[in-house]
């Protein structure tokens, strides 16, 4: 057990129908680190997030959260309550619940079941109001989440995470399919929420990565190809090799 690591994965392997998606992967994150995860399609990025959130069990290896929690022995909802939050690639909000009701569910996630039948505490209501301000949806609090625009749904998802204040935050392509303005606003939101917590972002948008990343991990065929500051990684011949046949990074 290493001290000072919020997440420590050792020799994690996952395979689907004999195909190795992750192959003896070692991966760790420090407290309050902002890390980007890139790699070609099929590199195992989303599977890695699935492992960390308990969605997919690892075939072999050890996954330790916060120095003591063995991830593979916990179910998804328990991991979420322990402080692992995740934003999905496609915005998945509850279509017929309003923005306010969605945040209500988010904020009450650690309440004991008996409280589900009572009103929210004052500080919880305050938290919802603050969150609405931060994500700029105060005016749409009563709107069903299903009729929000794509960008607004993404912000609502970020708001759900803001309300839950996870210790470790996993974001799967947070700016995919967004317009430039939406992307800028999302970037600001992300910077705001990455304070005081560890954030792991899976992203394809290199411009976005350059804008925010300091540490980047490149995955390729289920293994860690390289890790380091973004400029260094971009120059790495192995990374360029992995992306060969695809559009090369213009700046490189």
């Amino acid at each position, binding site marked *: 057990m290493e001290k000072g690591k919020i997440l420590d994965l050792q020799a994690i392997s996952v395979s689907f129908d004999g195909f190795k998606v992750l192959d003896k992967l070692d991966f760790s994150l420090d407290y309050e680190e902002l890390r980007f995860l*890139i790699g070609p*399609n099929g590199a195992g990025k989303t599977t890695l997030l699935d492992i960390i*959130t308990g*969605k997919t069990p690892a075939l072999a290896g050890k996954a330790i959260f916060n120095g003591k929690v063995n991830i593979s022995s916990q*179910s*998804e*909802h328990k991991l*979420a*309550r322990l402080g692992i*939050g*995740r934003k*999905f690639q496609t915005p*998945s*909000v*509850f*279509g*017929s*619940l309003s923005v306010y*009701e*969605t945040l*209500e*569910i*988010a904020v*009450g*996630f*650690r309440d004991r*079941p008996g*409280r*589900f*039948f*009572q009103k*929210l505490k004052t500080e919880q209501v305050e938290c919802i109001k603050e969150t609405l301000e931060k994500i700029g949806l105060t005016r*749409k609090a*009563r*709107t*069903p989440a*299903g*009729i*929000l*625009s794509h*960008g607004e749904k993404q912000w609502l998802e970020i708001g*759900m995470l803001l309300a*839950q204040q996870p210790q470790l935050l996993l974001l799967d392509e947070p*700016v995919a399919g*967004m*317009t*430039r*303005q939406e*992307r800028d606003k999302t970037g600001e939101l992300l910077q705001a929420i990455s304070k005081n917590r560890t954030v792991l972002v899976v992203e*394809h*948008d*290199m*411009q*976005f990565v350059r804008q925010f990343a300091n540490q980047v991990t490149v995955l390729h065929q289920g293994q860690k190809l390289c890790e380091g500051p973004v400029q260094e990684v971009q120059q790495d011949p192995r990374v360029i090799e992995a*992306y060969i046949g*695809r*559009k*090369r*990074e*213009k700046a490189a």
Partner: protein
Amino acid sequence: MVKAKVPTKEILAFRFLPVIAMLGLLAAPLVLSDFRLSLLAKFLTYAIVALGLDLIWGYGGMLSLGHGVFFGLGAYGMAMYLKLEASGNRLPDFMGWSGVDSLPWFWVPFHNPVFAILMAIFIPALLATLLGYLVFRSRIQGVYFSIITQAMALIMVTLFIGQQPLTGGTNGMTNFSTVFGFSLADTGVQVVLYFVTVACLALAYLLCRWLMHSRYGRLLVASREDENRLRFMGYNPAPIKSLAFGVSGGLAGLAGALFVLQVGLITPSAMGIVPSIEMVIWVAVGGRGTLWGAVLGTLLVNYGKSTFSETFPEIWQYFFGALFIGAVLLFPGGIAGFVRNMLDRVFVKASPPKEIPVPVDRNPSGKELESGVEVT
């Protein structure tokens, strides 16, 4: 499915509808004949089932095709008490025919009517909760859940028919005489039972309303919309869904107990697959997702069923079938969905709500397409 918001004033007007309906039901004994009144009472017990079914299907997205079982269990619980009461100190008649010479142990406490009524609610609720928990814990959803409930209905009917010495077999239980010492044949007693049924329906309605307006109700809807997302937010959907299923089962059991008091008969065929599906049809016609829709649908469908069967005894089932096909094709949201659409049209035209999203082209130049896809 997105529910558009009706302006608040209209919602307030809507609030009075259940009260008006309640007053109408309370006045019914003044205008209806004894026969019609007992028919209405029977429909009202069905409406209690529909409320519970709407809870799990309309709000929770779990379509149960075996709710007849919970209804039947409640009915049998009540019938056991009535049968013992009617038999006096002797064994129930059907036990004698099957060669049973002493009362089976689990029958004994059913001498007590309060125990019988409590069991009529508790046992179906417990069965539903346990079955629900096992199914939902294994993340079985959608059509697979429906198939399991249907299998349960089949198993239960077979079990009740097979255990003739204990349950009365195919013939079920009938020939009841008194309840709490009052004769069931007495008109006054029937009117009292009618009022009891109305009260139970009102309580069931209030219970469901309270549940669905609480945060729990929202969690149930969230589990319908995206169970996995709810999981990653730190909630375990299995107990949330099992509770709804349990409440639904308990309500069906209560309805079954009241049904036996009204009708004086329970047979295994009342808990099988066909009656279970009929229950689903009541909710579908009424409109799932609204409690009053479920109640209204039940009353209308059953009224239609009895009218058709009186007027056209030979071909009424075709009318009935046509009614369902028509309702499903023309009003997929049921009566409630239709009424809501009409209201929305009227009121949205009159005063457009502020929350209608206006699609804005935020990026007329289309510039974002050039950036951000270097590495894919």
